[in-house]
C-alpha cells in the first residue's frame, strides 16, 4: 500500500510590539530577570488587562495577508491551568471567536502549486520562562527548584493554525518559508526560530493514497529549525506507516524532536484529558475592529511574497521564484532583469553566488549587476567572482572588471595548450584510450597556466581539436 502524509501546522509568532499584550511593560529580550514586569503581568490581586492596540492592528494585517476573513467581533477567553510561568492561573487567548478565520496560502512546489488552508489566526499572551534547576529531566517534576523570569510573560503572540492540507515534509518546509517571509515583510515579527519568536508544532497522520479519511494524529514539538521540522515529520511519517503496516494502530500522542539524534521521544501520556475551562474573559471587552481599521491595514499591505512568487515564476519557474522571494532577493532580480540581464542568468548569479558572498542585496546597484551578469561568460571567472564580491560596495562600477576580457585569441592560447599536452603524455595516452573525463584536466591546466585569464570555452575547443576529437560532441 502507498501511504500519504496528512500534516497540519500550529505556528506561534511573537509580535515585536514595543510593549506587552495587556500591560505597558516593555516587551523583548535582553533585560535582567524580572525587570520588565508590573502588577498586571505578574498577576497581582486586582490588576486588570488592557489590550495592546498595535497587536490588534497587526493580527488584522496578518489575517488579511493570509487571505482570512476578519471577525467583526473577536473575544478574549481565559484558558485555565496551573503552572508557575502562568501568573494569573489562566492564559488570555482568543478561543471560539478568533480575530481571523478561513484564509489560505498558495505554496509553490516542484510539480505546481498547492493551497494550504488557514483555519484561524488569533491573539494570545505568552507565558513566562521557567528554568528548572537540578534533576535530570529538564522538567518541573524532577527539578530541585524552578526559577521563573516573567519578562517574557504577557508578550503578544499570534497563533496560526493550518488545515491538514500539507502532504509532505518538503511542502511543510516551503509553506513555513513562505509564511515566515510574509510575516517578516509585514514588519510584525522577527520570526526567528532560534530565538523562539517563531515556534512550530506539527500534527501528523498518514492514510492510504486516494483515501480522504483522517486517521489518529500525533503532535511533534520542540523543533527549532525548518530542517528539523522536515526531519521530524519524515521520521514520524515513517514510524506511523510502520505501525499501520505491521497491523498496529497509531495512538494519539505527543513527541519531542531530539535535534542531536534526529529521533522522536514520546511524552509521558497524561492520565486524563486537559480541561482548560475556557470562558470569555470578563475583564476585557470584545475586539471589534472598525471597517476603517481593516481598510487601513489592507492599504498598508505590501505586495505579498505569494503574489511575487507567481509573478517571478512566470519568467523562471516556481522553485527558483520561491528561493528568490523567500530569500528576499526577488526585488534585486527584477531590477537587474529590468536593467537588461537575462532572467535565468540573473537568478543563478543572485540566488547561488551573491548569497554565498554575504552581499546585502539592498546595497547592490542593479544596473551594474546587470552589466556583470551580461559579461559573465566573457570575463575570466576569477575577475567575475572578485567583481561580485564588491558589487554591494558604495559607488561600485562594473567598468574596470569588464575591461578584463578573457583571452580568447587562439594564436595566444595554442602554444600553451601544446605545452600542457606535451607535459602530460601519460594522460594524453589515457585520453586517447577512451578516458574522456580527462578533458577537464587539460582545460584546468591551461586555465592555471593563464592564471584564469583564458576563455574556457575557447580552451575547450582547442584541446579537443589538438587531441583529434573534433567538435562533434555538443557542450
Amino acid at each position, binding site marked *: 500500500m502507498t501511504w500519504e502524509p496528512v500534516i497540519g501546522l500550529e505556528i506561534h509568532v511573537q509580535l515585536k510590539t514595543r510593549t506587552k499584550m495587556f500591560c505597558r511593560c516593555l516587551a523583548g529580550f535582553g533585560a535582567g530577570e524580572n525587570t520588565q514586569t508590573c*502588577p498586571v503581568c*505578574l*498577576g*497581582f*490581586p*486586582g*490588576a*486588570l*488587562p*488592557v*489590550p495592546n492596540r498595535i497587536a490588534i492592528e497587526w493580527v488584522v494585517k496578518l489575517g488579511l495577508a493570509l487571505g482570512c476573513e476578519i471577525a467583526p467581533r473577536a473575544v478574549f477567553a*481565559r484558558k*485555565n491551568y*496551573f503552572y*508557575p510561568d502562568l*501568573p*494569573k*492561573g*489562566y492564559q488570555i487567548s482568543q478561543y471560539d471567536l478568533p480575530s481571523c478565520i478561513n484564509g489560505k496560502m498558495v505554496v509553490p512546489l516542484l510539480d505546481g502549486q498547492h493551497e494550504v488552508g488557514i483555519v484561524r489566526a488569533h491573539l494570545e499572551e505568552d507565558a513566562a520562562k521557567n528554568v528548572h534547576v537540578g534533576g535530570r529531566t529538564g522538567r*518541573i*517534576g524532577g527539578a530541585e527548584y*524552578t526559577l*521563573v523570569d516573567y519578562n517574557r510573560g504577557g508578550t503578544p503572540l499570534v497563533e496560526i493554525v493550518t488545515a491538514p492540507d500539507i502532504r509532505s515534509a518538503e511542502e511543510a518546509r516551503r509553506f513555513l518559508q513562505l509564511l515566515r517571509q510574509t510575516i517578516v515583510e509585514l514588519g510584525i515579527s522577527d520570526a526567528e526560530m532560534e530565538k523562539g519568536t517563531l515556534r512550530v508544532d506539527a500534527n501528523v497522520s498518514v492514510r492510504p493514497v486516494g483515501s480522504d479519511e483522517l486517521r489518529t494524529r500525533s503532535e511533534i514539538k520542540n523543533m527549532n529549525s525548518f530542517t528539523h521540522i522536515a526531519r521530524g515529520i519524515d521520521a514520524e511519517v515513517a514510524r506511523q506507516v510502520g505501525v499501520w503496516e505491521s497491523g498496529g494502530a497509531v495512538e494519539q500522542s505527543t513527541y519531542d524532536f531530539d535535534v542531536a539524534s534526529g529521533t522522536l521521544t514520546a511524552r509521558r501520556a497524561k492520565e486524563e*484529558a486537559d*480541561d482548560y*475551562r*475556557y*470562558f470569555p*474573559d*470578563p*475583564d*476585557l*471587552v470584545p475586539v471589534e475592529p472598525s471597517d476603517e481599521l481593516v481598510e487601513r491595514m489592507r492599504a498598508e499591505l505590501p505586495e505579498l511574497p505569494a503574489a511575487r512568487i507567481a509573478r517571478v515564476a512566470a519568467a523562471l519557474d516556481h522553485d527558483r521564484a520561491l528561493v528568490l522571494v523567500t530569500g528576499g532577493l526577488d526585488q534585486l532580480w527584477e531590477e537587474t532583469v529590468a536593467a537588461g540581464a537575462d532572467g535565468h542568468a540573473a537568478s543563478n548569479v543572485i540566488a547561488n553566488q551573491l548569497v554565498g558572498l554575504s552581499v546585502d542585496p539592498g546595497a547592490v546597484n542593479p544596473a551594474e549587476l546587470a552589466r556583470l551578469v551580461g559579461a559573465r561568460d566573457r570575463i575570466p571567472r576569477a575577475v567575475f567572482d572578485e567583481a561580485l564580491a564588491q558589487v554591494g560596495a558604495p559607488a561600485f562600477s562594473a567598468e574596470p572588471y569588464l575591461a578584463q576580457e578573457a583571452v580568447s585569441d587562439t594564436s595566444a592560447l595554442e602554444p600553451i595548450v601544446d605545452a600542457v599536452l606535451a607535459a602530460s603524455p601519460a594522460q594524453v595516452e589515457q585520453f586517447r584510450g577512451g578516458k574522456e573525463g580527462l578533458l577537464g584536466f587539460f582545460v584546468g591546466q591551461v586555465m592555471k597556466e593563464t592564471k584564469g585569464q583564458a576563455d574556457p570555452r575557447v580552451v575547450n575547443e582547442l584541446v579537443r581539436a589538438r587531441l583529434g576529437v573534433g567538435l562533434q560532441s555538443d557542450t
Partner: protein
Amino acid sequence: MSALVDTLRTTAEEALGLLERGDVSAAELHAAYLDAIGERDGELHAYLRTADYDGASGIPIALKDVISTKGLGTTAGSKILEHYVPVFDATVAARCRESGLSVLGKTNTDEFAMGSSTENSAFGPSRNPWDPSRVPGGSGGGTASAVSAGLAPWGLGSDTGGSIKQPSALCGNVGLRPTYGTVSRYGIVAFASSLDQVGPVAKTVRDTALLYRIVSGRDPSDSTTVELPEAVELPTADRLDGLRVGVPRQAMALEAIEPGVRAAFEHVLRLAEELGARVSECELPISYDYGMPCYYLIAPAEASSNLARYDGVRYGLRSEGETYRAMVERTRDDGFGDEPKRRIMLGTYALSAGYYDAYYGQAQRVRTLLVREHAAAFEDVEVIATPTSPTVAFPIGDKAADPLAMYACDLLTIPSCLAGLPGLSVPCGFSEGLPVGLQLLAPQFGENTLFRAGHALEQALDLDLVPERLR
C-alpha cells in the same frame, strides 16, 4: 480632640464644611476618628487595620479591605493574603487620595467578599452597632459598621450581589451600587469580574453622591469602564412629583420578607405617594425565579478563575511542599476558608467540559433575559422599589452553618446586579429596633434619579440613624 467633632452624627459634607471654615484641621479630623475607633472598634471589629494621618488635606475615609492600597496591607479578609502589602493603589484609592481624602484604615469583609454577614472573614466577624450580637451584613459589613458607629464619615465598599446595599440596610446607612462600568475595578481584589462594582457607603444620600462623583468615570486601566453620560448632581429637591415608581409583584410575593420589613417598606411607599410619586406594580418574573441560581453559577465560575492566582508562587501565603503541585495544593488548602473553597469547586464544575453549556452557558442566557426583563419594566417606570434585605440584621451564627439560608439574604439585590443596573439602599424605618433598607433601582446611568428619589424620601423620613445604644 475628638470633642471637636461628633463623629457619630457628622456627615461627610458637614466635616468638609468644618475643614473649609478652619474649625478643625485635617489632622484633627483624622485623629478624632482614630479616637472613636480606639473607643468602639474593640467591640465592633469594623477595621482590620488603621492608618496614621499622612498629610492629606481632606476628610477621612474607610476603605473595604479588597481595595488595594499602596504600602497598606490588603487581605480581602483572607489568610492567603494575610501579609500581602500592595505595591500600587487601586484607581479608586488613588482618586480618593487625589481628592485629598485621608485613608483611616481598611475595613473587614467576608473572605474575597463572599458572604452576607462578614462571618466568613478569616479574621473574625464584624458586629452590628445597633446590636453587637448581630451581624452588620456583608460582605461589606466592616465599612457599614464603621460608618454607622461614627468610625468613619464615609467609606467605599464593593458589591457583587449585594455587598454594599445589604450591609447598608442592616446598619442604617445609605449605600450605592453603581452602574456596572462607571467605577474602575483596577486594584480591587476580584471576586466575580462581570459583577464586581465599587461604590460609596455614607450617612446621607448627598454624601453618597459626592463620593460617587469622586470615584466614578472612565479609567484607562480598566477597559470595561466608561465615561459618565452626565455629571453627578447633588440632590436638593424634597418632592417626587410625577416620579413613576414600580414595585415588582414577584418580589412582594416572597415569603422570606419579614413582616416588620414589609411594614416599613409599605410605609415608605405611601410617603413617596404623598411626595407626588406614582406607585404601581411591575413585573420581573424571571428575575426572582432564576436570578439567584443564575448568580450562583456565574459568580463562582468567575471566582474559580480569579482565585487561581493565589498559588504561593509570587506573593501571599506559601505552604511548603515537596513538589510544585504539592506546594500549590497545600497553600490553597491552608489559605482559603470554606466559602471560597465551596465557590471554587462550584465554579470549576460549572465551567468543566461537558457541563459548560448546561451551567455557565445557560446562566449567561438567563442573564440576557434578566437584562431584557429589566429594560422592559423600565419602559413604564423610572425607579423600581423593593426592600433591600428580606430581613433585619440577624444574630451572629444564625445562618453560618447553612450556606443556602445565607445566600437568600441577597434574593432582592441580586437580579439588578446581574443586569448591571445601579441600586441605592436608603434607610426607610425600623423593625424590632433595627434599621430597614429601601432598595431603589434605575436603568443604566440612572444614579442621579436614584439620588433625587433617595434624598427626598430621606428628608421626609427624617430618621435618627445613630444606633440607640450609642446616642
